[in-house]
């Protein structure tokens, strides 16, 4: 198969290739649906879905293998904007977005929507402030920009440090998610699942670097978006809300409002807390009236947005487009593809809640007899693994809202079962969750390994290393970091979502202002940038430690999920103050910034550097 050999024609053929791929995947789903009718078991369907999709990704990874430096680091800078948008979508939407977001909205209501707003609006910052300028710069990695714009190995090293801390925090959460899904779908222990997931991740990225990751991420996006949309559309159709449920679920939100009164949501509190699971006590659409709840909403939004614009695995996706103009367009496409999932998540949460609460629906459980509810297959299945619990605390044999405990994370995975959809949909959702977690893990691992191999090894330790050598180092680092991530993930230190939020906070604390001001403020200089990175990271980490473990009361509701506000604030003050106190950058650097600001002309760093 001379799939990837003639470069020009491969790019020209992309719509056809991915069209065929999508058709093939739909056929596979249809085949599974037919086999289910012939009695194929749920477990086998799950295994086939996960194994088949991973096999395809690995195949793409192998076909995209390369020994060229710019193909390995920036996919040869020939990824068209729409496809780069899809790849960014997969890179971006992690296990947390796919698995946990709808569940978070289900349990947390309006307050949780701060994640939805933050994780989309961040792209406005990426598009207006950063992506086109970094593309013009022509860097391979984010520290490459820091190191060249501000000059000096120490600034570069600080960039690498922040990148590694933020991305590593994030990648352990993703490997954790792949392990969770793999262990459930393939019926293997979690610890084995983690290593299995890692193997899949490395197969996609090791041989072809950014080029392989790009083309697998496009494939993963297609799987994950189909897997997310199909159950919601199916369910809404069943409930009579039509085939574009996102537009019409206002009725369902209103109905939940009535049911909340009926079931006394927020009035009935659980008799005792149960570890790991919780009862629904928050209203769906209502928002807190206090100033502090408004502050908590906007600070979380701000953290997720500034974090988005500082996370290197996202920024480096825009290094791969053919031009500055395409980088800009690609940001818009990225957000469009991300939007498709994010505006569906609240709809999914709403429909699932309705299934559980509405006594008019056959699937409802609240208000039913506990004996009947306990007989349901999905209740038994998820209780067995400890993700769900029913306690008849008032002993009346009827399930009240405060007697039903569950982990929000299961909403997406369990929804097909709750709504009584065929097993094939559950298998599809597992494959989608796997795609989401794997694609993000790939992007993150590559960001870390590339920074270490390019910035630390090549630029600082051995500038004379030849291409072959550099690419071997990059691959060895990739495997090493992946293994370290898997080891940390198997300890399960934090929840998936907690680790994700911290990654954003670390990234914004150390990188947001050095990156933005590097483009938008000519006066920003090396000492200022170094102070910005180190003080931002230091103060942010200190605040995290104090509110999480040190017993400090958070200021104005800025808790451990939002420590980036403190870190980035310190970073801005330090960077501006130190820059103004020290000498302005030399004429050469200022000319470089001028050059950076216009799309026309050659990139600032050569195409192979």
């Amino acid at each position, binding site marked *: 198969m001379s799939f990837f050999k003639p470069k020009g024609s491969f790019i020209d053929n992309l719509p056809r290739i991915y069209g065929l791929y999508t058709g093939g995947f739909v056929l596979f789903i249809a085949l599974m649906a037919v086999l289910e009718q012939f009695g194929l078991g749920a477990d086998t369907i799950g295994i086939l879905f996960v194994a088949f999709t991973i096999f395809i990704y690995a195949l793409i990874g192998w076909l995209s293998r390369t020994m060229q430096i710019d193909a390995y680091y920036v996919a040869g800078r020939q990824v068209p904007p729409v496809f780069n948008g899809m790849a960014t979508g997969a890179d971006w939407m992690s296990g947390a977005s796919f698995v946990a977001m709808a569940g978070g909205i289900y349990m947390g209501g309006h307050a949780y929507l701060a994640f939805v707003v933050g994780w989309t609006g961040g*792209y406005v910052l990426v598009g*207006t402030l950063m992506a086109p300028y970094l593309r013009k710069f022509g860097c391979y990695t984010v520290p490459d920009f820091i190191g060249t714009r501000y000059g000096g190995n120490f600034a570069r090293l600080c960039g690498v440090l922040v990148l590694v801390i933020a991305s590593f925090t994030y990648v352990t959460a993703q490997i954790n998610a792949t392990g969770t899904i793999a262990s459930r779908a393939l019926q293997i222990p979690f610890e084995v699942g983690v290593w299995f997931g890692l193997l899949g991740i490395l197969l996609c990225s090791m041989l072809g670097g950014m080029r392989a990751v790009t083309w697998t991420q496009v494939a993963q996006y297609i799987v994950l978006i189909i897997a997310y949309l199909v159950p919601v559309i199916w369910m809404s159709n069943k409930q009579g809300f039509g085939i574009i449920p996102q537009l019409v679920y206002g009725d369902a939100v209103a109905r939940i409002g009535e049911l909340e009164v009926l079931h006394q949501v927020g009035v009935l509190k659980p008799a005792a807390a149960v570890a790991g699971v919780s009862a629904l006590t928050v209203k769906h659409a*209502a928002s807190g009236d206090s100033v502090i709840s408004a502050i908590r909403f906007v600070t979380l939004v701000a953290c997720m947005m500034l974090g988005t614009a500082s996370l290197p695995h996202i920024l480096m996706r825009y290094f791969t487009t053919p031009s500055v103009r395409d980088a800009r367009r690609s940001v818009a496409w990225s957000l469009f593809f991300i939007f498709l999932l*994010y505006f569906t998540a609240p709809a999914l949460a709403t429909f699932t809640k309705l299934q559980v609460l509405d006594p008019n629906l056959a699937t409802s459980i609240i208000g039913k007899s506990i004996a009947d509810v306990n007989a349901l297959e999905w209740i038994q299945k998820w209780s067995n693994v400890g993700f769900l619990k029913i306690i008849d605390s008032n002993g009346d044999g009827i399930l009240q809202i405060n007697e039903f405990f569950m982990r929000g994370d299961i909403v997406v995975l369990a929804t097909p079962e709750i709504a009584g959809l065929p097993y094939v949909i559950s298998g599809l959702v597992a494959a989608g969750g796997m795609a989401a977690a794997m694609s993000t893990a790939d992007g993150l691992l590559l960001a870390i390994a590339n920074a270490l191999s390019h910035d630390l090894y090549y630029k600082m330790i051995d500038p004379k290393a030849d291409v072959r050598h550099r690419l071997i180092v990059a691959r060895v680092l990739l495997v090493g970091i992946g293994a370290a991530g898997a080891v940390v993930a198997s300890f399960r230190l934090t929840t998936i979502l907690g680790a994700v939020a911290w990654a954003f906070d670390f990234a914004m604390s150390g990188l947001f202002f050095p990156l933005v001001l590097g483009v938008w403020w000519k006066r920003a200089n090396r000492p200022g940038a170094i102070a910005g990175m180190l003080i931002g990271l230091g103060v942010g980490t200190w605040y995290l430690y104090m509110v999480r473990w040190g017993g400090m009361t958070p200021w104005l509701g800025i808790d451990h999920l939002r420590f980036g506000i403190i870190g980035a604030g310190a970073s801005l003050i330090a960077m501006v103050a130190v820059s103004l106190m020290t000498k302005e950058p030399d004429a050469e650097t200022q000319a470089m910034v001028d050059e950076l600001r216009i*799309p026309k002309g050659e990139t600032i760093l050569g195409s192979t550097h």
Partner: protein
Amino acid sequence: MSTANTQKAHWERTRRLMIIHLTIWFIFSFVVHWFAPQLNKISFMYFPLGFYMAAQGSLVVFVVQLFLFAKQQEKIDRDCGMAEDE
């Protein structure tokens, strides 16, 4: 006009566009959600408006805004002769 002057004009327009877009971004990221309790009293397509803005409204604004931004910036680049070759 000399190159230095066009370059200056180009950056001036680029900066103005950025400020306009970030102002819109700021309103739909923060201001709207600050007033969620008040907006929730208004019903929009049967949604409480505060909930709707966080679940969908702001997101739509961001997507539309980014496509618009790309178009506008491309025009600025072309007008000032700073665009890349097609």
